[in-house]
Structures are given as structure tokens and as C-alpha cells.
């Protein structure tokens, strides 16, 4: 099956700092999504981005499908950005199921 590797596994930032999270995947994909899992365990959709670049406030994402990676940028980080960020790519052609990476655990300190 398709492999999804995320880096770094852990990240500690001071409030106001910027960061880049990376997701590498082993095969071509039809779907790539970034999620934020908050401290209560909820999975929040950030981006649907199988290719190209999108921005939403302080967050932006870029996927270079031909090179099989995606980047999530967080600018001017806030303590509420803490949590785990997951990249997920489609699992199969028949059910559009998502295969998740192991995530990047982000802690933003005041």
C-alpha cells in the first residue's frame, strides 16, 4: 500500500514563530488532506490539496504531486495551534479511503 512519511515527528515552537511540516508519499494520489487533531482528539480538516497551493489565514499548503510531497506552513504560530498535524492520502481506487501518516506533534509555547 501507499506509504506516508511525515517530518518532523515532534516540534516545539515559541509563539510567533513560523514552521514547515512535510509529508512524503510513495505513489501518485487522487486525494491528499491535512488535518489538525486538537487536544480533545477531534480531527479538523485543514486542506484538501492533491496538487497546487492553498492558503487559509496563517496556514498554507503546497503539494508537488510529481515529486510526491506536500508541505504545510504555519506562520505566526499561536498556542492554539498545538496538537498533532496529520497528512492523509487516498488508500485505494475503489473506496477513496485515506492512509494517514504518523503525524507531527506540535507544541507552541507562550
Amino acid at each position, binding site marked *: 500500500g501507499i506509504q506516508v512519511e511525515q517530518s518532523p515527528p515532534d516540534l516545539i515552537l515559541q509563539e510567533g514563530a513560523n514552521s514547515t511540516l512535510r509529508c512524503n508519499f510513495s505513489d501518485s494520489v487522487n486525494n491528499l488532506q491535512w488535518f489538525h487533531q486538537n487536544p480533545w482528539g477531534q480531527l479538523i480538516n485543514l486542506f484538501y490539496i492533491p496538487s497546487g497551493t492553498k492558503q487559509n489565514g496563517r496556514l498554507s499548503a503546497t503539494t508537488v504531486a510529481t515529486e510526491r510531497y506536500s508541505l504545510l506552513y504555519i506562520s505566526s504560530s499561536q498556542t492554539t495551534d498545538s496538537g498533532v498535524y496529520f497528512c492523509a492520502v487516498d488508500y485505494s481506487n475503489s473506496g477513496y*479511503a485515506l492512509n494517514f501518516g504518523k503525524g507531527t506533534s506540535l507544541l507552541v509555547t507562550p
Partner: protein
Amino acid sequence: EPEVTQTPSHQVTQMGQEVILRCVPISNHLYFYWYRQILGQKVEFLVSFYNNEISEKSEIFDDQFSVERPDGSNFTLKIRSTKLEDSAMYFCASLGQTEAFFGQGTRLTVV
């Protein structure tokens, strides 16, 4: 904004008991999913459901698991005889035109 809702939010059950986790997907979505996340680990795919039948399932989804769409709105996951290792957060999701939306999860604790 439409959302996927799951009940209960937390369930504690004794080993060997049957549990049913419930989900109401977004109404005009056609694909439905169950995923699980063991504490501290990544989210794992269990099963996808389309047109009233399973379209894909993972190795985790063995004979103790079953899914059902008993009416036009609910989507359920049944675990027949729970084991300690079934303790996890279970997420329901439904697929729109392009992206999947997840419910808030049911935390299952098997004791």
C-alpha cells in the same frame, strides 16, 4: 455547516461484550468510513461503505466487526466480542465531492 455526528462520545464496556457505535454522516454524501486511533498512534482505516455494501476493508476489520446502514441516516459499527486491544478512538467519516469529513469520535474503553 453540515457535520458528521457520532454517539456516544465515550463508551466503557467489559471485555467480551458487544458494542455498537453510531454515526450520522452528512446527508448528501455517498461514501462512509470507520477509522480507529489507538492512543498515541496514527489514524487507521477500517472500512469503507458505498451503496449499502462494503467497498473496501483493512486487515484490522476482521469477523468481529460489522457495519450497517439501518436507515437513511445512521451508519453503525458493531464490535461483537470486544477485546482489551479494541480500546481506541473510533472515527466515522463521510466523503463529499473531494474531501472526507470526520466526526468528533467515540472513545471506546474495554475493561
